[in-house]
């Protein structure tokens, strides 16, 4: 009996067309980051679960695919995010004197989403990390690099959204009773409900005042008296405003939006974070941010920042002609001289064609730009996609003399 073999939920195969686009994205990405001093690293497919889980939210550690190491009995986790792996790699192999370092990667990661009908579980992650650098100039350099890569991939009209994990974490640290609720409401941008909390009888007076004076003005994009905030937060907000201004100065075609109360999917972000979107794709196509505390979890206390491309939506929308090399098909009939077909194949391949030798019965299944027929007398006919005769040659040698 033949078994119906299916793939697990959220897992799929990728066809040649997708892979060509993926390779193109990688080529553009690595060309751009290499010229900016980034070196490529390859991280392990799986690691001890403790190492993988550092930097993930509690809920996200549930999404790591786990297994038991038959050699040691340790619990292992499949790679679910490359950034913590790079943090571990740098902390284990570099000292502060070796820094800064700039690293890039292209890996496949597995996120065991519970609702896997909705999202793929296997994700292509292509990104880079600048480790041992800090300050607004470095933030600008990295966002600018990300934006440049997207421009080269054919997405010039970008919206860059800048957020502040430092501000969000500060606000949440000041709340106790309403902390979880506020975090959920930030995530949904449900500022109406946050406003209701500031009037609620059950919320302690101190928290209501804080929501009214600090949270709501940020939520409604109103002017805020920075003096009421800690100096480190004041500096962050000034830096982010500077970042917005400079990005817009350098890239007049880019729209820059401040969304300071955005809650991120990873809890390792510590300061400025950013997303880049374009109107033609209903998903962020790049996101990243500063994670100044992550490396200290692995024993090296240095700042860092990185970003990753959201690869699948990019390759679904990329304007890349997969048939940039025209396809020539050599029709292979019964009893035909196969060695001649291969000679013709080599000839056209040298003329920058993709060439395939196809049996007559399969010709109708293929879209080609050039059809090559050989008759019993070894005469060669070239036809276009509409079967119109383009040229005729009496011998292979004659063909080789022609310019195609």
């Amino acid at each position: 009996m033949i078994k119906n073999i299916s793939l697990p939920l959220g897992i799929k195969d990728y066809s040649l067309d997708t892979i060509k686009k993926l390779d193109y994205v990688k080529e553009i990405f690595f060309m751009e980051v290499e010229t900016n001093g980034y070196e490529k690293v390859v991280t392990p497919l799986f690691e001890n679960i403790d190492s993988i889980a550092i930097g993930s939210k509690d809920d996200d550690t549930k999404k790591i695919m786990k297994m038991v190491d038959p050699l040691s009995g340790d619990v292992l986790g499949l790679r679910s995010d490359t950034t913590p792996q790079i943090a571990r790699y740098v902390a284990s192999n570099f000292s502060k004197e070796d820094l800064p370092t700039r690293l890039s990667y292209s890996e496949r990661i597995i996120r065991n989403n519970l609702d896997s009908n909705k999202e793929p579980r296997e994700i292509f992650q292509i990104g880079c990390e600048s480790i041992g650098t800090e300050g607004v100039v470095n933030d600008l350099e990295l966002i600018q690099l990300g934006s440049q890569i997207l421009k080269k991939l054919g997405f010039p009209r970008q919206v860059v959204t800048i957020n502040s994990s430092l501000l969000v974490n500060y606000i949440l640290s000041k709340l106790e009773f309403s902390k979880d609720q506020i975090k959920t409401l930030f995530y949904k941008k449900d500022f109406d409900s946050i406003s209701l909390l500031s009037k609620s009888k059950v919320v302690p007076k101190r928290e209501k005042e804080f929501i009214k004076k600090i949270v709501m003005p940020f939520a409604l994009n109103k002017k805020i008296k920075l003096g009421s905030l800690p100096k480190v937060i004041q500096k962050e907000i000034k830096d982010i405003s500077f970042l917005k201004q400079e990005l817009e100065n350098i890239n007049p075609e880019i729209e820059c939006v401040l969304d300071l109360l955005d809650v991120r999917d990873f809890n390792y972000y510590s300061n400025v974070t950013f997303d880049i979107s374009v109107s033609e794709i209903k998903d962020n196509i790049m996101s990243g941010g500063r994670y100044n505390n992550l490396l200290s979890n692995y024993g090296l206390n240095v700042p860092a920042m990185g970003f990753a491309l959201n690869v699948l939506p990019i390759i679904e929308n990329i304007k890349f002609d997969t048939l940039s090399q025209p396809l020539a098909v050599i029709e292979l009939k019964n009893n035909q001289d196969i060695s001649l077909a291969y000679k013709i194949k080599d000839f056209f391949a040298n003329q920058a064609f993709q060439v395939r030798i196809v049996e007559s019965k399969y010709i109708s299944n293929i879209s080609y730009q050039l059809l090559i027929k050989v008759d019993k007398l070894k005469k060669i006919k070239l036809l276009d996609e509409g079967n119109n005769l383009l040229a005729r040659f009496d011998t292979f040698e004659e063909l080789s003399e022609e310019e195609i």
Partner: protein
Amino acid sequence: MARKGIILALAKGRIFNDTLELLKKSGISTDKIKKKSRELIFKLDGLTILSCKPSDVPKYVELGAADCGIVGSDCISESQCDIYEPIGLNFGLCKMIVAAKKGEKIEFKAGKEIKVATKYPKIASEYFIRRKMSPEIIYLNGSVELAPLIGLSDVIVDITETGETIRKNNLKVIDTVMNISAKFIVNKTSYRTLFKHIQSLSSSLKK
């Protein structure tokens, strides 16, 4: 501010008339929608309106088929879609309740198994699991009130505006699961790429 390019998904059914009224008050002419109510797509005032089944609206918005939508918070919670919910609207007000047959004693204690008939399996399941109970969810698509009366379930989880249908069917409300109202929801990427247009639309809805 022109709203060119925004696609707005509206929930047909319970809140549809109130939604049209709100759009009208916000300065958007909705006459076309009333006249051609069997159509599903309408172009008006720089907006494209999609007329959708309520439970589908959050999905349309999450996947970007619509930039934003107006739908009841019951459908949003049940869908568990990843969307922004920036504005609560002051209509479509009702409650999601747990109700049982009058005279029936329902114990809410940890570990207890309970049969629940509902159109909202995710919300109902979460409600009872939060109480450490073991719900057996029976998904029904309509006339949910019938289930406890014929012994199909112990309780129902359903929405009610006045409680009239509940009372008429010899049921009583045991608890409120959540208060419900219509909400303006937005796709996460459209919120960024159409920021000014969506802000303009949401402030006119808020007026």
